[in-house]
């Protein structure tokens, strides 16, 4: 379990200069808590490689993994 460490869903940070307060609080606090196929940050600790995994959070099935910028 500790070979790979989960770092949360991939989320796009809104531009803090131009976004509204509610967009900002939504980004800071709110999460998509429902079960779904999600893009997540993971880290392979022995090599310290960060990558993205597409995982079904209901079944715990990893569907795809790729480096940031390489996937679609």
């Amino acid at each position: 379990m500790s070979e790979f460490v989960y770092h949360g869903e991939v989320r796009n940070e809104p531009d803090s200069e131009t976004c509204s307060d509610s967009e900002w609080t939504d980004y800071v606090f709110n999460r998509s808590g429902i079960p779904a196929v999600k893009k997540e940050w993971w880290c392979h600790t022995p090599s310290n490689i960060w990558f993205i995994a597409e995982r079904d959070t209901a079944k715990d099935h990893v569907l795809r993994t790729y480096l940031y910028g390489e996937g679609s």
Partner: protein
Amino acid sequence: MPLRLIRYALSSKHHEPRMFTTHDRMKSSYDVVIIGAGGHGLAAAYYLARDHGITNVAVLERGYIGGGNTGRNTTIIRSNYLTPEGVKFYDASVNLWKDLSAEFDLNLFYSTRGHYTLAHTDSAVRTMRWRAEVNKHYGVDSELVGPDHVKKACPQIDLSCAGHAPILGALYHAPGAIARHDAVAWGYGKGADMRGVEIHQQTEVQGLDIQGGKIVGVNTSRGYISTGKVLSAVAGFTPRVTAMAGFRTPIFVHPLQAMVSEPIKPWLDPILVSGSLHIYISQTARGELVMGASLDPYELHSTRSTLDFTESLSAHMLEMFPFLSHVKVVRQWSGMADMTPDFAPIMGKTPVEGLYLDAGWGTWGFKATPISGKTMAHTVAKDEPHPLITGFSLQRFADFALTGEKGAASVGH
């Protein structure tokens, strides 16, 4: 069986009443619909009926009564939290707990044991001292004690924890208790049922009917019900219900696992928690050791168990209690914990009129069952939050006014 008892068995005058009424069909409308027949939903139904005279209420449950986190938790009850909001709220709950067995005429096996949160580092000692001061300020029995106090209450403990993490002190909370988890749900359910509330099991809420920002009904697996008020008390299913309602919350779901040993001779009176070793343990009236650890490290909407959990928990358990090496683990299980960023619940009104939320109970909500039922019943009946829960509103995130309970809520549930 003594003969004089047989006549009761044979006589129809002395039949054992059923715990709950079975209703063949649902009505087409109710004053209040409660989603989730866990302890929280049933307690809210009970207090709505008992304290507010609102009895035209349906509690809808997709599975069976108490089959969610209520029936999966390790039943630690305490009030030595960190924030004033938390301490006052959980203390009110402990006070309700003490009378419940008599109120329900049902033995909840409520057992006051004393609760130690062990400190293995200087910074942990500092947090304990802080908690003790906040607790005492609000009249809660709580103090910082030395390792000798722990050793006296539990002579079997290895205070050095195999030399890895010596115990420097502990936060001692004399009112700390455990109780029979299912019985709590049954007691509240029976009390609500007796007062006219309908409990419908095997009935899943699949959609919310919202018109002009107001709740007008719910779609269920057994048909449509119209209602002006809905209370969601669904713990690990909360994000699915708020998605039906069309708003977002900070709640995220990770599994929390636990396990239990074979029954052994009673030796452990208090409840012990160690944040550093990620373990907590108590012994039930039947002699089983109930043990748990920290939250699983990633999001998952499933109640699967893992060997990793059993292995690492057992290893830490043996550091503290080497003599347990021959004791067998007989069961393990897991529940879906609805976590919040500040380790405080989310309770009260929502952006949808008539929809109320009782959620964000994560790994700590069993102890809150009585007081959350009572305060949510008030909130639903009066359409305004009970004074004890204003610090737990969903709005606190937008206001950047969090209620930080992490120092008192993680690991030690």
